[in-house]
Each structure stands twice: as structure tokens, then as C-alpha cells.
């Protein structure tokens, strides 16, 4: 049967971290939105470790908040441990990180979706897409109910032909306990979308009461938690803006009653166990064909590739306040269950550990992301958007960021508005999407600060300022919040100028700031400013030289970034363009000259030639 005669504006398939942000962004910007999920009880599940943030990812979460997303606030009110990483380094590379109560995190998000106007949530597994004249117009489900939508956002994570391995044991599914979306892959292939395989893995989970903590090193949260959401620009009604309905929500005062993580190490015995059983590991016995992430190697990989390292650090992370389950961070493996047991028991503190779930590796389909526009719309199928792990990324934060962008853009598409494109120099989200659509990826893509050429500009505290214009242009924030952000921006500019131009004892305040490593005595009026204003001002003043250098480079790049390449261009017929470059350009079909220049194999001369061609305004088909 057909569920709806009037199509939804946006249908989101999959309720992971990408799907949740996608459907919230779409519905909050006014689009009638449907979220389809195979299991309503696993909305926003943390399939891997129960933590949000960390290097570069922490900045991404703040950027998501700056764009009206939910991840930051949800982390703040369900977080059980908060730490600011890299405190010894400069503000640009400091990142907030939090352990979350896994269930609370999910419940709060589920509740948020339920209360969201314009959004309908329905439990059904999407089995295929419905196409009409090269466009997607809806989806089919396992219940034989079809749903019609003007746009469809696919956020199915690792579920596309997901295959889980525990040693030689194989199970179909994208996550332990959930099923695999098999036929959807076929639907994408049918539409001409190429698919490839990737793999990732997770470690075993154990029971807390079976851990002997006596000799383990404790890792406490920061006494002063660094939160993800910009609480300074939110009114109370914004903080819990869904509570306006008067319903009680799960969650607690951010940073209250933090819990600890624990550190332990593998032993020589662990190494012996792994080595003796390598042939039984799914990855080493050739069972798995997908490419795994280099930054998240299995314990097999660690022992084999870094044989000279005597031991490997493991973190025991609690999964929540109301559960005794612990996550062994660092011990992901595809060894068979009996070996996993021995392995876990060879670790100090875990001698008597009781396993709740085995570790497993999962293989899944992804759609190489160079097949998308920077709006995250497919180049092959109009009105089809893809976000999250299906695009080859890894991480909740990377997924959520894409979900948000895809949701906003799907909604905008239905209204005939230009997509929101975040540029590389504006935010990690911009780097993420540009890397994906321009270069693609061969391993699960994770963000690192070093991927951003302008990372000095990406201090987490400036996310709201950096993305203000997008938030405003795309109606992602309330008027109230926009006003507050604008006031913050003005205050920062004002104080930057004041500190640069006011002298005390013959030196400007700014020079004093730059010369002293500690915080110098500054005017009382400045010190009375909100923390956010003070910190951003001091960052800009202290690092002015470097930040200005970045700005100059950005200005230079913009000249090519703003030159659009006409769709109709035929690279093979451009005089002077080298064959190799023409081929690369033809494969990637960049949208502007900046993107073209980032394709490997395309050099500045090719860009020069294209620039002349485009300026000539001739029919580029020649």
C-alpha cells in the first residue's frame, strides 16, 4: 500500500546519528519530514564507544550546535564525564570530549524526535527506493508499505549488506542485534550508484562488577566541564526547547556527578594469545575483504605491525549510570569468542571479567562519496541525499554533521532554495564534506585537525561565530539566538579593537597580552565580559599574526573558489589541457576551480587554462 498521497518533503531512512540530525534539521526548517527506522528502540545508538567529541570531532560537535543541531546539547545533558583534550596546547587544537550515558543519550534523542513538530517517526526497514524519471520519489519497506517523498536522505550506516564477523562465525547485520539492509544496496546499484566495501570493528563489552579496579589507573573528568552546546547564546527555552510542551525529559545538569574511566594495558600473555590464534582472526584469515581504518586498528594489527611495542593501552569506559556494562576501548578484534575470552583474562584487572558481548568486525557497503555534490545530493539521482557511514566516514560526529547538512539541503531543495555549502576555510564540516566529495576515501574517513589547512581558525569556541551567516541564511536558529550571537560577535570585535588601540604604561593591552604567557591585568570592564567573549577576544589578540596569515591565504584561494565550472564542460575538447588532467577532471567533475585544484593530478597550469576558458564565456563544449 501507499502510506501517503501527498509526498513528505523529506524522508530520512535510518535513525543513527546522521539520520537524527537530518530529520531534525529538515523538520526544524519547516519541511514535513518522515523518519524511517528499522528499530525505534535503537535511535541514535552508540554502536561503538559511548563517547562524543575528542580531537577535531569535539570541534565538529560545536559546529553542529552552531547550526542548530542536537548532538551537542544531547551530549551535555546525558554526559557522565567531560574532559578537555590538549589543554597544554593552543586553543585551536583543544577539543572537548565526553563519555555519555548510552541509554540516556538515546532516550533523550528519541523523545526529542517524538516531540518535534513537522516530524513523523515510523518503524519500518527500507528495502528499496522508488524512482521516477531519474529522480527518487519515495521508498519501499519490509512491511510492503510505500512512502512518497520529494527528497530522500539515506543514512543507513553500516547496514547496507552488513556482515559481522566473530572469528569464522558470520552474521548478517549492521550492528550486533540488528538486521542488515540487503535489498537497498541493489536499489542504489540499479540507480547507477557505485558501491564498495569497508570494514570496522568494536571491542568486547564486559560487566563492571567483574573488573578488579584496585590496581588500575583512574581517569577522572575535569572539575570544570567544557560543554559542547553554546549555552551562552541560548535562553532557557532554547536549552530544552522541546520541553516547552511541558513534558519531562531525561537528562541532568551538565557536568554533575561525573564518573571515571580506567586505564589498563595488554600483557606479554595477551600478545602470545593473539599471535597463536592469528590464523583464526577473520581479518587475518582473509575472511574480510573490506578496508579497515588505520587509526583504529584491531588488537591483531597492533601486535603484528608494532611488534616492538611491549604493551598497548586500554581504556575501560562505563556505558552509563544505570548499567554495569563497560567498553574496552582499544581491544577491537575479529578473533573467535574463545580467544577473546582468554585475551580479556590476560589483562590486569580483567582476570575474572565476564563478557557481555563479544567483539566483532563488520563489513558493509559504502557509496564512494565523490558521487555526490557538496550539498550531499547524489550526482546520479536527483533528490537523493546520502549522509554518514554510507559515505565512507566513521564516527558519530562526522555522521551527524553530514546528516545535518543533508537534512537542511533536502528541505531547501523542496523549496527551490540554494543548498547550504560550508567551505573548507569555515569549519571542519566544510573540510569533511569537501574531502569526501572531492577526493573520496579508501578507508573509513575520520576527521583529524591536521586535515584542515586552516585549523588555527577552527578553535572550538569560535564555531558559532564562524557559522553565524549559514545559521542565519538557512533559518537554523531562533531569532533570539541569532541576536545573541550577533551581540557576541560585536563584543569580540569591539574588545579586539579596544585592546589593540588602548595603551597602558606606554604599551597597548594587546601587546601585553601577546608578550605575557599568563593572563595579564586587563581592564576591569573587559574582565567583566562573559567568558566566551573574553576567551575568543584573547585568542584573536594573542594569535593575531597567525590568524591574519591564514586569512590572507584564504583570500587568495577564494579567487579560484568562486569561479564556477559550467556543467556542460567537455574536458576532452579543451585545447591545451593535458590528457591525464582532462581524465581526472572528467571523473571528478568539480564544481568550481578551487575544488578542481584539490584533485590529485590536476596542476596549476590546468587551472589557468580553465580560468581562461571560463572567462572567455565560450560554450565550453567547443
Amino acid at each position, binding site marked *: 500500500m501507499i502510506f501517503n498521497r501527498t509526498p513528505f518533503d523529506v524522508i530520512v531512512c535510518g535513525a543513527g546519528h546522521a539520520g537524527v540530525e537530518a530529520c531534525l534539521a529538515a523538520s526544524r526548517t519547516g519541511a514535513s519530514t518522515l523518519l524511517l527506522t528499522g528499530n525505534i528502540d535503537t535511535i541514535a545508538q552508540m554502536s561503538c564507544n559511548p563517547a562524543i567529541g575528542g*580531537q577535531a570531532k569535539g570541534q565538529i560537535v560545536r559546529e553542529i550546535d552552531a547550526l542548530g543541531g542536537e548532538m551537542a546539547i544531547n551530549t551535555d545533558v546525558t554526559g557522565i564525564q567531560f574532559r578537555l583534550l590538549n589543554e597544554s596546547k593552543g586553543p585551536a587544537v583543544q577539543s572537548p570530549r565526553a563519555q555519555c550515558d548510552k541509554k540516556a543519550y538515546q532516550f533523550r534523542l528519541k523523545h526529542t524526535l517524538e516531540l518535534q513538530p513537522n516530524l513523523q517517526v515510523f518503524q519500518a526497514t527500507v528495502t528499496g527506493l522508488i524512482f521516477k524519471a531519474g529522480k527518487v520519489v519515495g521508498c519501499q519497506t519490509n512491511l510492503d508499505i510505500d512512502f512518497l517523498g520529494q527528497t530522500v536522505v539515506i543514512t543507513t550506516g553500516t547496514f547496507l549488506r552488513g556482515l559481522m564477523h566473530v572469528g569464522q562465525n558470520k552474521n548478517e547485520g549492521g550492528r550486533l542485534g540488528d538486521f542488515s539492509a540487503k535489498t537497498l544496496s541493489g536499489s542504489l546499484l540499479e540507480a547507477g550508484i557505485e558501491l564498495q566495501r569497508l570494514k570496522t570493528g568494536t571491542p568486547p563489552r564486559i560487566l563492571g562488577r567483574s573488573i578488579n579496579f584496585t590496581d588500575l589507573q583512574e581517569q577522572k573528568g575535569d572539575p570544570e566541564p567544557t560543554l559542547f552546546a553554546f549555552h551562552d547564546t541560548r535562553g532557557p527555552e532554547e536549552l530544552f526547547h522541546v520541553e516547552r510542551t511541558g513534558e519531562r525529559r531525561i537528562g541532568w545538569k551538565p557536568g554533575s556527578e561525573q564518573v571515571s574511566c580506567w586505564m589498563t594495558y595488554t600483557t606479554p600473555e595477551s600478545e602470545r594469545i593473539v599471535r597463536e590464534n592469528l590464523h583464526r582472526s577473520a581479518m587475518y584469515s582473509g575472511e574480510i575483504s573490506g578496508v579497515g581504518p588505520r587509526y583504529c586498528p584491531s588488537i591483531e594489527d597492533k601486535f603484528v605491525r608494532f611488534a616492538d611495542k611491549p604493551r598497548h593501552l586500554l*581504556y575501560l569506559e562505563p556505558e552509563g549510570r544505570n548499567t554495569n556494562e563497560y567498553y574496552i576501548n*582499544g581491544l577491537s578484534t575479529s578473533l573467535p569468542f574463545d580467544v577473546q575470552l582468554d585475551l580479556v583474562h590476560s589483562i590486569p584487572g580483567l582476570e575474572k571479567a565476564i563478557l557481555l558481548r563479544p567483539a566483532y568486525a563488520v563489513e558493509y557497503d559504502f557509496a564512494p562519496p565523490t558521487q555526490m555534490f557538496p550539498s550531499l545530493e547524489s550526482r546520479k539521482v536527483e533528490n537523493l541525499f546520502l549522509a554518514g557511514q554510507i559515505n565512507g566516514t566513521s564516527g558519530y560526529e562526522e555522521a551527524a554533521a553530514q546528516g545535518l547538512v543533508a537534512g537542511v539541503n533536502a528541505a531547501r531543495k523542496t523549496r527551490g532554495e540554494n543548498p547550504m555549502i560550508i567551505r573548507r576555510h569555515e569549519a571542519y564540516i566544510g573540510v569533511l564534506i569537501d574531502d569526501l566529495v572531492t577526493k573520496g576515501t579508501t578507508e573509513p574517513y575520520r576527521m583529524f585537525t591536521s*586535515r584542515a589547512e586552516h585549523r588555527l581558525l577552527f578553535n572550538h569556541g569560535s564555531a558559532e561565530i564562524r557559522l553565524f551567516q549559514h545559521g542565519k541564511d538557512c533559518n537554523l536558529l531562533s531569532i533570539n539566538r541569532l541576536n545573541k550571537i550577533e551581540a557576541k560577535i560585536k563584543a569580540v570585535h569591539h574588545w579586539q579593537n579596544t585592546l589593540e588601540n588602548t595603551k597602558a604604561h606606554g604599551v597597548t593591552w594587546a601587546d601585553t597580552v601577546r608578550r605575557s604567557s599568563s593572563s595579564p591585568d586587563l581592564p576591569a570592564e573587559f574582565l567583566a565580559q562573559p567568558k566566551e567573549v573574553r576567551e575568543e577576544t584573547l585568542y584573536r589578540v594573542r594569535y593575531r599574526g597567525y590568524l591574519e596569515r591564514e586569512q590572507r591565504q584564504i583570500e587568495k584561494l577564494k579567487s579560484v573558489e568562486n569561479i564556477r565550472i559550467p556543467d556542460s564542460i567537455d574536458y576532452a575538447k579543451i*585545447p591545451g589541457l593535458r590528457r591525464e588532467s582532462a581524465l581526472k577532471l572528467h571523473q571528478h567533475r568539480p564544481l568550481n576551480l578551487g575544488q578542481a585544484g584539490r584533485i590529485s593530478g590536476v596542476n596549476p597550469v590546468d587551472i589557468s587554462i580553465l580560468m*581562461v576558458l571560463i572567462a572567455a564565456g565560450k560554450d565550453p563544449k567547443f
Partner: protein
Amino acid sequence: MSFPSDTIAALATPVGTSAIAVVRASGPQVAALVTGIFGETPLPRAASRADYKDVRGLLVDDVLFTFFAGPNSFTGEDTVEISCHGNPFIAQKILEDLFARGCRPAEAGEFSKRAFLNGRMDLSQAEAVMDLIHAHSERALTAANQQLRGALGRQMDALISQLINILARIEAYIDFPEEDLPAEDRVSVLRELERLKTDTGRLLATSHYGTMLRDGIKTVILGEPNAGKSSLLNRLVGRDRALVSAEPGTTRDYLEERILVGPHALRLIDTAGLNSSPSALEKHGIDKTIEQAAEADLFLWVIDATHPLPSLPSSVAARLSSANTIAVFNKIDLPTAHPDSAPRNFPAVKISALTGVGFDSFHVEIARLADSFQAECGDELIAINSRHAYALERANQCLDSAVEKLDADIATELVASDLRGTLDAFGQISGRIDHEKVLDQLFASFCIGK
């Protein structure tokens, strides 16, 4: 469409073929450059004669320059054309000086491209411009590839892998603070950076061609004691620079002076005489002479025409050839001079350092040899080389700044930002280096992964 705002410079004439070389610069900085170099406010379209002095105030050449105010110029921007002697070394020095003053080397066909983008060429010429860019780049590419296949390529590969190693070590601690990495070791990073700096500096300096450009052609005056070497130097320099003495062995160390012979810059080096039976003290001077001779480009072998023909130490003699040596028969003013005594393998001149007789043809002979050096360097190579120098210079600046920060214990993400600058600069010689390489190195050398 917005346009590039930087000022570019390049040779506008083919190298080495004509008596005059033209260096062209275009961009918003040009008017200020002209004022800075020539000390006069430029008058549009009027050729002026002036001394070109480099940033350090040293005379490079006397030149003719013409300023064209945008938009009435070839490129549509402010442009200056500087005509100097057709000697590539001079043109090259001017180019390097323009780079030092903030210009950057023009890309292949960039003047034409700007002309087109600024509406100085009509649409029908677009294809021609593209072909031009293509042709320029193909030529440059061929020359560059030739060099990169050789020693330069190997040296660049070594520098780049050193740098990537260092960057990976720095980035590991920025991006993976939670990992169980060995303690961050700024001292050894600093040591490696210093090494990279030295190696980069060496590449910049040992580039034979580059050295000739920067310092002039290294010209060693050698001969027996009392042959008149110091007198010769004084005469060439035009003032009494070296101590002249009837007592043999006066010049024990060596002495250096820069001169222009026609368009050529020479780095003249006066040496201690090569005595067949030296005293202990003389021995030291002679060793120095042999050392200098080992790296010389040009030899002026001074022979006292009143004496029988001397012989040279074999280590020195082995370096001399008809392509790099002038036999200078000195003291022909003396009645006992008999300069025609023996045939030589070298071009010879007869002079008197005392009276100045014979110096005109001596100058001609020097210029002839110096010209032949440049012929070896070929046509496009010049442009390639100035790019190398520019890129390496920039790489070095970034390295300096990185070292300074590490020394001062300043946050490593700022050090990393400088090192990225270095990586980009190296990339201008070897081709763009993807930052992914740093990650590759990082994951290969550190066990990352919780």
C-alpha cells in the same frame, strides 16, 4: 570574477640569445617597487636609465626601465619592463631581487592569462592564450623533469621525507593526545629541524648555478709568488685592495673582491703564490690556494713574463682547461719580458698590471669565457632555477620560523603551520605534496588506535 592580487615577475625575452634581456613584473606592487629600486616615481611609458641596486644596496647592472600604468599595459595591470645586459646572470639577479622584494615567479603563460582576464585581449584569442599557457608549461615541465630525474630530484626526495617525518611526529601529539605515545621530544624534533634547515640551505648554496648567480663567477688568481697576482687584482678592482710587495709570499691567505666585467659579476680571489719549495708559513697559504682552486669557475693564471715558464701543483693543474683558464703573461712592460716563449693550451693575454697595458683584450677574454658558462645552463633552465631558489628560500624562511618557535617553546600547532609552509614550498619544486602523506607516515610510525 576576482583577480589575483599578487605581483609576478619573469624574464620576458629568451635567455642568452640577445644583447639585451628584459625582465617584466606585473601587479599592484609594481609602482612601489619601481620607486623602491630606482628611487624615482615612475613616469608612464618613458624609458629611464638607472642603476639597478638590489635590496642590500649592491649594484647589479645599469639598466633601462619602462613603467606602464594599468590598465594601459600588456597585462592591464601596472607593469614594469627592465632591460639589462643580455647576460642571464644579470637578468637572474634582477629576478631574484624582485622575488626578495615580494614578487613571485610568474606561472607558465601567466602574463598572457592576466592580459586576457583583464580584457586586454579579445575573445578570439582565448584559445591562443590557452595554447600559450600549455606550451610554456610543457617546456617548463620537460626541463623540470629532467632536473628532477637527476641529483636535484634525489635531494628533494630526501628533504621531503625528512620533513614529512618531522611533521608526522608533531601532528601525532596534536591529533592523538589520548594515545600511549612515547613522551613528546621537542629536543630531537628541533635537532632534526636544524638538520633539515642545514640540508635545505646546502642545496640552495651548493647549486653551482645558484652560487654563481648570487656571488658571481668564482675567479681564482693563481701563479708563483711575485708574479703580480695582487697587482692584477688591484688593477681589475680599480683601487689598491691587495698589498703589493716585492717580497715574495706576502699574500699568505686569500682575499676576495667583487667586480663587474661588462655584464658579468666576478668574485675575484687573490691567493698566496704557489711556491715549489715553500716555508712552513707559506705552506699554509698554499694549502688555502689549492682549496680555493678546487671550487673555482674561472682561473686567471698569472705568469711573470720575465721568468721561465713555471709548473703548477698537480692538484691545481688538473682543474685547468682551455674552457676555464686564461694564461696571463704579466710585466710585459719590462724589457726582459719574453711572453712568446712557449705555446700554451690556454687562451693567453699579455698585460702589465703596473701600466695597464693589454687590459682591454683581457676583459674581452674574460667575458668570452663567462658567456660560455651560461650557454651550458641553457634556455628554460634559467626560469626553472629561479623558481627553485625562490621556493627553497621560502622553505628556509618557514623552517627558521619553526625553529624559532620550538626554541621558545611555543605551541606546536604553530610550528606545524610553518612546516606546512615548508612542505608547500618543496612541493613547488617536486609537485604538490598531499598532506595525506603526513598521515600515512604518522600511522606507519605510531601505534594509534583506541
